[in-house]
């Protein structure tokens, strides 16, 4: 396979030394070849692209990243603090590579597969092939194309019909290697009536500058229930660009809880497609950033069928010279009658230099629907501050408490208690530093 010459030196550097993995699976080879072609053909987005108009990824394109390889695995003791106790099943990836010795996959109930994609792909090709890279489109998305071109391994979760995972599954992605690029990949298939809770967790050890380009696909069958917690706590110098595509069949429930603390520049695209009637969707988002961080969340709730219900709350807490972006689109396609979809976005600016761009978009092509959106940007409430200080709390303690309270709405709904508690402590520690 001869790669087409990349147009952008950045893509060229990312693809430098690219070798097509020798896999005996022809459909997978074709998929990667096609993705590589698109990665070479697509332009690197700039502020002139509508979908990237608030997010300058210039610093990312100036850094040179090589595919992660050869870094020593961290000792279990160094990452055990990130293990979520409720999650009895855990897949750990270090710099994008599956680390079985750090993972825990014993005791899987019948009808459930949780494991590395590479190890599963031959045995379960009939399940994987119809879905892998079919939902997270790479034709027009350069970072999804790159991820797919580099697709070697990842997480695979398959819950067969009416099976319920009794405990959450944690997918822990640990990055340790400076100047490396990794391409985490995840495929979740919850068949009709299946249930699971998934924790997708990105952690940076130390202060390394690295690049994670991640893609997740979630398929929820009829009446399936998927709870998806996504925690991005990359190192302060990292770049994190990620897409998640969730595809929902009739009466499926999907709840997404996205928490963004880390990375120098991060972008998360969440696309939820309602393919059947009567789905129930909850989308919670929280970004807590400071310094020179940039955190961009783009969501699309695509009501392609009638009787869909979605509740979305997105919150940003921005301090220092940080910059948060939220672009939330609700699309109600023709015929998607009786859609009930709402979106609330609230942003808290803690400094004069903090910046937020919020862009709600409603595109409605059906006439019997209920859709609403609201966006508010503000500072801490002076009356609340006075009330707390009038009870003896110091000004900084009062600010800390109110900032925490702002975040609590999103964190309290995370369905994994120990993780919610950990994240609460992180918010408190962060806001204490702020105050």
């Amino acid at each position, binding site marked *: 396979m001869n790669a087409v010459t990349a147009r952008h030196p950045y893509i060229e550097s990312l693809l430098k030394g690219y070798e097509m993995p020798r896999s005996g699976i022809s459909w997978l080879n074709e998929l990667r070849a096609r993705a590589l072609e698109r990665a070479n053909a697509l332009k690197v987005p700039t502020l002139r692209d509508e979908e990237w108009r608030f997010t300058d990824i210039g610093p990312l394109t100036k850094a040179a990243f090589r595919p992660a390889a050869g870094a020593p695995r961290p000792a279990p003791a160094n990452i055990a603090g990130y293990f979520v106790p409720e999650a009895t099943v855990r897949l750990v990836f270090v710099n994008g590579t599956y680390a079985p010795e750090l993972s825990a996959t014993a005791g899987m109930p019948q009808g459930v597969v949780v494991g590395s994609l590479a190890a599963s792909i031959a045995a379960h090709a009939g399940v994987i092939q119809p879905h892998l890279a079919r939902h997270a489109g790479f034709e027009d998305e350069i970072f999804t194309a790159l991820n797919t071109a580099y697709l070697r391994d990842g997480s695979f979760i398959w819950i067969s019909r009416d099976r319920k995972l009794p405990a959450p599954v944690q997918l822990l992605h640990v990055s340790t290697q400076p100047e490396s690029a990794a391409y985490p990949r995840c495929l979740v298939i919850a068949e009709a009536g299946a249930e699971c809770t998934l924790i997708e967790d990105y952690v940076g050890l130390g202060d390394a500058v690295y690049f994670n380009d991640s893609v997740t696909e979630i398929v929820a069958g009829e009446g399936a229930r998927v709870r998806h917690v996504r925690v991005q706590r990359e190192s302060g110098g990292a770049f994190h660009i990620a897409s998640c595509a969730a595809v929902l069949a009739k009466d499926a429930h999907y709840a997404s809880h996205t928490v963004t603390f880390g990375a120098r520049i991060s972008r998360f695209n969440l696309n939820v497609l309602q393919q059947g009637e009567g789905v129930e969707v909850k989308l919670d988002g929280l970004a807590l950033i400071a310094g020179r961080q940039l955190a961009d969340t783009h969501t699309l709730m695509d009501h392609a069928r009638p009787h869909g219900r979605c509740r979305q709350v997105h919150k940003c807490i921005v301090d220092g010279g940080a910059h948060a972006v939220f672009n939330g689109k609700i699309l109600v396609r023709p015929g998607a009658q009786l859609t009930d979809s709402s979106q609330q976005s609230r942003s808290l600016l803690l400094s004069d230099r903090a910046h937020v761009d919020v862009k709600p978009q409603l595109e409605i092509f059906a006439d019997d629907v209920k859709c609403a959106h609201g966006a508010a940007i503000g500072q801490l*409430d*002076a*009356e*609340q501050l*006075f*009330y*707390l*200080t*009038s*009870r*003896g*709390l*110091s*000004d900084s*303690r009062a600010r800390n*408490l*109110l900032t*925490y*309270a*702002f*975040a*609590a*709405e999103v964190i309290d709904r995370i369905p994994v208690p120990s993780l919610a508690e950990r994240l609460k402590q992180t918010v408190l520690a962060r806001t204490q530093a702020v105050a």
Partner: protein
Amino acid sequence: MIRGNAKMLLEVKGLRAKVGGAEIVKGLDLAVRAGEVHAIMGPNGSGKSTFAKALAGHPAYEVTGGTVAFDGKNLFEMTPEERARAGLFLGFQYPVEIPGVSNSAFLRLAYNTMRAARGRDELDPLEFDDYVREKMKLLEMDAAFLDRSVNEGFSGGEKKRNEILQMALLEPRLAILDETDSGLDIDALRVVANGVNRLATADNAVVLVTHYQRMLNYIVPDYVHVMGGGRIIRTGGKELALELETRGYDWTKVAA
């Protein structure tokens, strides 16, 4: 109870205060000694609430003149939290809702802050829980109020009970209760007033800011002051409140 030799808690001289650029308090004098209950009455806009908020240190209320000594110290050199820690308490006319902060966590934080300021050990959550439940009985409050967010979705009466609960926990030297009776039905008024009476001692003092006389049927004041035009224009005993009730406020202006 009036005792001429009791300790002076609050001494206000010639206080002037502005809010939103307009001078509302225009030369107010008031002296409150330990053990006393004062009522400050007056029509809307006479400056009662501005006075209360200026004392507590609300940032929107600017003091433009006069002096206030609290327990012998210059009040205006203290931040709102320092005033609170020194024992000044404001019961809010409109208690603020704080979604996301549980009432129990807030009460414990405030209580422990005050304990620390007084050089006492903090209570842990379990110890505090026992303590606050005991205090809640005084105000006939259901324990369910502990789990809710601070004042969020509370009725008017529930908010006022929560204010007096805070007073019970913080044990202030001087409590200024701003329109604590407004929005209360007669049963709630009785409960709240009873709570205040139980908390009043020979060592502390209460200043009731109110438009109506009816709370004074339950909390009997030693002094009644009438405000008009940003000053105290008349001072009397509890019988002055009854006179106001029958004659209204207009005559006080004429007589002053």
